[in-house]
């Protein structure tokens, strides 16, 4: 069994990440908070919030991405009609059942109307929690969208300072930016490594390690990625005759872990994806010199990921991020896995498929919910896709 530089075994690291994933009471975050009465926890939903500002306040940013397939939703279903996706109902379940009763603030990013309205519901249901709908600009000019965004960030910084009882300073924020830059560099390294040798870092493992970053302090998470990379680099794992795919559409409601495993078991190495985009939304380092809010804003406007919740002003650029992801990771096809009733993913899908068709990149599509249990159809579909790529691709 391979070990990392500090001696951790791959299996131990993955087991730790799996335990964090399985823990729907967020024990590690509770313990972190309990260790010091001045500590606070601020939750956030997909897809992006500037975690640096939360960290700069000395708080723990806690990613809430639904309840997965192990949470029994009892109360949450009473708040939503059958035709609304699952993540808001399991998030409400987490709230109503007291699983996140230690959370002092919740940020609801601008991703879709369901999460947007959930921000108002949260205000009504949990009046003692700081709740903010976190709007981001859809105009990418520094003097228009940038200026608006800097002011929104300043308001968030002010509010969190108030929650702390002491304003957040620019130096604190610069320090947090540097720490998150390092974390994002490691996440990118993990993705590059997996694209290079996917058999060494299976998608489900990489996902668990990434997912741990939603509940751990960023410094601890960076250490975990480092350890994981060191451990898997030293380990020889069996290489399968799999094709290489990009998995897309999974940016908000999370697919069950079994779904990710099933895709690989069916013969498709996942070499890139849009899971947990918050961990790498900013695609370059945020400068640590100068005005930190402006630096965060500029990086958001000009060096950030593309996804369905973001307007693409240039028709020629539409969907090209996916083509680039395919080329960069030397993928042979794309799997669209979209949550049922997900407006952003499902409305975006035909446009992306047209772009892939023009680029002669094969794809398949299916839907899931975070609690989907039956993987056989997905395994069959992914398996057939892998076979067709092997049989019919030009390679």
């Amino acid at each position, binding site marked *: 069994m391979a070990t990392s530089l500090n001696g951790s075994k791959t299996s131990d690291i993955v087991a730790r990440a799996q335990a964090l994933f399985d823990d729907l009471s967020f024990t590690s975050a509770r313990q972190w908070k309990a260790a010091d009465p001045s500590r606070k926890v601020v939750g956030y939903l997909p897809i992006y919030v500037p975690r640096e500002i939360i960290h700069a306040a000395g708080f723990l940013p806690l990613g809430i991405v639904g309840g997965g397939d192990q949470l029994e939703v009892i109360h949450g279903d009473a708040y939503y009609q059958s035709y609304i996706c699952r993540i808001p109902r399991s998030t409400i379940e987490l709230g109503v059942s007291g699983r996140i009763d230690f959370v002092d603030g919740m940020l609801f990013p601008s991703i879709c109307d369901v999460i947007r309205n959930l921000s108002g519901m949260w205000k*009504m249901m949990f009046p003692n929690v700081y709740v903010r709908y976190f709007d981001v600009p859809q105009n990418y000019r520094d003097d228009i969208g940038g200026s608006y965004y800097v002011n929104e960030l300043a308001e968030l910084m002010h509010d969190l300072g108030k929650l702390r009882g002491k304003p957040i300073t620019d130096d604190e924020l610069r320090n947090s930016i540097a720490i998150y830059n390092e974390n994002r560099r490691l996440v990118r390294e993990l993705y590059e490594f997996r694209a290079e040798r996917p058999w060494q870092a299976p998608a489900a493992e990489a996902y668990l390690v990434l997912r741990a970053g939603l509940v751990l302090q960023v410094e601890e998470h960076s250490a975990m990625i480092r350890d994981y990379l060191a451990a898997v680099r030293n380990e020889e794992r069996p290489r399968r005759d799999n094709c290489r795919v990009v998995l897309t559409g999974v940016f908000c409601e999370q697919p069950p872990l079994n779904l990710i495993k099933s895709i690989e078991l069916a013969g498709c190495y996942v070499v890139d994806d849009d899971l947990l985009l918050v961990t790498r939304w900013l695609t370059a380092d945020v400068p640590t010199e100068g005005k930190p809010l402006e630096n965060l804003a500029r990086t958001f406007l000009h060096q950030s990921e593309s996804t*369905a919740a973001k307007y693409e002003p240039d028709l020629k650029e539409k969907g090209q991020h996916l083509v680039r992801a395919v080329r960069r990771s030397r993928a042979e096809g794309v799997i669209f896995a979209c949550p049922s009733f997900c407006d952003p993913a499902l409305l975006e899908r*035909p446009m992306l498929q047209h772009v892939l068709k023009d680029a002669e990149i094969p794809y398949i599509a299916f839907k899931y919910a975070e609690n989907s249990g039956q993987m056989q159809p997905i395994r069959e579909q992914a398996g057939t896709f892998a076979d067709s790529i092997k049989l019919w691709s030009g390679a």
Partner: protein
Amino acid sequence: MTIIVTPKAGPAKDIEKDASMVKQKEMMAAHYDRLTNVPQTGEKVCATFVPGNLNELIMCFDLVNNLPEVNAIQSGLRRQSGAYVLEAEKIGHSEDVCTYVKSDIGMMAKGNIGPNGKKMPDPDVLLLSYTGCFTFMKWFELLREQYKCETIMLHTPYMGDGKITKNMTDYMVKQLKEEVIPKLERVSGVKFDIDRLRENLKKSARAEDDLVRVLQSAKHKPSPIDAYFGGIYYIGPIFGAFRGTDDAIDYYSFLRAEVEERIAAGKGPVTPDGDMGKEKYRLVVEGPPNYTNFRQFWKMFYDEGAVVVASTYSKVGGVYDLGFRHDPDKPLETLAEYCLGVYTNRSLPMRIDMIANYLNEYEADGLLINSIKSCNSFSAGQLLIMREVEKRTGKPAAFIESDLVDPRYFSAANIKNRLESYFQMIEQKRAGGRAAA
């Protein structure tokens, strides 16, 4: 395979219409003729959305306003939308997403024939007023892919904290100045004239005054209007291509006089079957209507003596009854405030306040929510709205489900059954109140 069976039309029967409805029908017909005559007239077309519709600005560039949602509604009312939705699904659009979008895309795929039987024009510009609805963004990205024309994003921030901040207004005004207006100038070839905009805004405010009088007439007993089914006719011109025109001023002045006459005569609303009988139930309705079975849906109400005295859907293209008017003295700021204030851009707590106030001010018996499968902007959170409004007002609420323009999601028997139960619930509540007194 799904087969949509459209009920055969029954024997022709005259539909009762107010004079205002006839007038409005003529206005809409003239507008569609103007749109379909574009190849002959050379006018240019700007497609945009009802919430965040900047008609006063669009007219400054001599552009003709085309609203895809209204086209989808027209297809729904004409029972064509079912086939359009299926067509869109056939070419790859998910069964889960908005049927306005799919009706529009299906209509394009089937030749883009408008309600007047003529081909609708391609837009010269898509003014993506991203206001209160996520789907709008994807909808116009999809249309842009098809038409490959200039697309202008105007991002309206959401009122998550229940207030309009200076940062929001400044952001919108900057977008208008630096992005929207220069691009509209380029597409149209017409130079922007702010005085022309002021004139249009003045006209808007005049029509808005009369619209508010009409909507608030429902405080009378009996209510002279139905503020949901009838309300959809009343909002047509001001939410569509007529806000800021003399036609809109004339229409709303005429409508107001007509409504005042009904009040004086002690009459209730006009329904497709003539004057409504005795007003038995006064309701507030949240959510859009179903359009594929619009008349059948309405009949379920007026047959039982139920009149809608206030609705949130009639505020989706602008909330005027809470005081907002377009202001010619601050022309760009007022456009920003208009967009920010539309109903679906308001936070859930604001919506709850508004509905609870309607129930009290209009002395309604209860709240009915028509939850629309297609529309998450409206629907997500409605069950909490229902509970909270019941808690605050002590008045009963009920929940029904349908869709905008997809006939597969209109189940007449289910809806009728629920409505009948709801009316019984109101009766019981009244009986309980009398017994307590």
